């Protein structure tokens, strides 16, 4: 029994070390980011309460799916703590925006712990926090929202130029509406909107040979500059203990 436990712990240590190495190796296509950010699974986001140093923390992990809001509402309704830890590769942008608003209405603190990554629509959940922390080694990764991942748009693009031209004005219109929602959200959450114009909307949604980068990992200095993190207590913030290990 003891040998089985020792083997299990050794295995966990190995996978953790591998994840740590993967998170520190640079991605040649996105040089500001590691090769494999740890944004968790592509399964719909789950909410799990964990005790960390004797206080409850809500772990939000997975894809921001179309039906996330009722699950988040239910999780917040029963949650007795005040802090949410986030790990997600993004998903539905509008749902992310609404979930961020819900988190704000619940007066929650948001955190990206060491070793975790929050990408794309997850950014908006994070920005919903009244107090926002990114621990050393946590990643806040932004990009330009995309339309060509939409199945309808992809189908029309595949049908050729004439069909694609019809979709252009729809894309232009939707992009303007989504950008206005982004602007509105950042104002309400107390962030600088220059995060949009100087960083997010400068990224390419589709890379090419001259500039393959489509993701941008903010440094902690940048995150403070745009008020993405606002945990400005005296002295350095004590990093959160590492999050519990979970299977992907």
């Amino acid at each position, binding site marked *: 029994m003891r040998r089985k436990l020792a083997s299990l712990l050794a295995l966990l240590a190995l996978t953790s070390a591998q994840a740590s190495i993967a998170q520190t190796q640079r991605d040649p296509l996105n040089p500001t980011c590691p090769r494999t950010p740890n944004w968790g699974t592509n399964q719909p986001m789950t909410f799990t309460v964990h005790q960390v140093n004797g206080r409850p923390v809500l772990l939000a992990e997975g894809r921001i799916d179309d039906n996330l809001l009722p699950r988040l509402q239910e999780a917040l309704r029963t949650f007795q703590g005040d802090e949410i830890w986030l790990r997600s590769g993004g998903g539905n942008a509008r749902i992310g925006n609404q979930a961020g608003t819900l988190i704000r209405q619940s007066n929650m603190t948001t955190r990206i712990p060491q070793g975790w990554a929050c990408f794309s629509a997850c950014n908006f959940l994070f920005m919903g926090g009244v107090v926002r922390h990114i621990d050393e080694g946590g990643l806040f990764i932004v990009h330009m929202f*995309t339309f060509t991942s939409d199945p309808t748009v992809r189908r029309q693009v595949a049908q050729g*130029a*004439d069909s694609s031209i019809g979709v*252009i*004005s729809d894309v*232009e219109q939707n992009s303007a509406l989504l950008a*206005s929602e982004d602007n509105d959200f950042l104002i309400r959450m107390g962030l600088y909107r220059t995060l949009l114009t100087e960083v997010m909307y400068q990224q390419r949604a589709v890379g090419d040979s001259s500039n393959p980068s489509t993701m941008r990992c903010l440094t902690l200095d940048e995150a403070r500059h745009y008020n993405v993190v606002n945990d400005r207590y005296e002295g350095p913030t004590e990093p959160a203990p590492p999050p519990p290990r979970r299977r992907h």
Partner: protein
Amino acid sequence: MRSRRAAFLALLALISSEPASAQPDPNSPICPPNPNWSTYPRMRFTVQAVPGSYPVLLAEGQIDDEMLPRLEEALRTFRGNEIWLRSSGGNAGVANRAGFLIHRNTLSTRIPAGWACSSACAWMFMGGVVRSVDPGGLLIVQVLSDNPDPAALRRQAAPGGDGMARTIENVAQESARRATEENNFLMAMGISRQLLTDIIYRQTGPGEAGRRCLTVEEMHRYNVVNDVYGGPRQAKQAP
């Protein structure tokens, strides 16, 4: 004095070189045919003396790429405090900068009865510190687009759709940046940004199909006009 001024304005109306638009319905978002927005290919600035009052600056014609230096020069020598606008639009970026310039000069903007200010011109108008649209004046909004024309899009479309996908993403990116600038502009001018999401970005189609005449109620609701002092005023007649 008042009758002299009225007679003067009536005379100006008579000698106006272009026909006034049909009296629009102030409660209808549908624009009347042939709005009177001037056919000058480059915006002209003319100081118009008004007996018994300050002169007004008439800004008429297309907002062309080289308009800003002419506006700066016109403002440098202008001794009045109000600009009257008549234009079908033009370069959106130039109009945005012109709006800021008008605002920095603390000028009022006005669309007099019978005149129309459309598309990019609306952004110049919104630069006014005090903004008025007289009964019978038209403020027409539209999505400002930098879309390449269909022929150019076909040229960009590589076999397999990669070129077109990139073009679509570029359009989305440009649109997002422009929307952010437009959000900025409206905040700077004290206009509700809901004008964008409720109305302007809901318009579809190029040209006439995408034009939307703001109703009087909408202009007040979004603070597009803000001359709400002392009850109704007497309308000014366009020259």
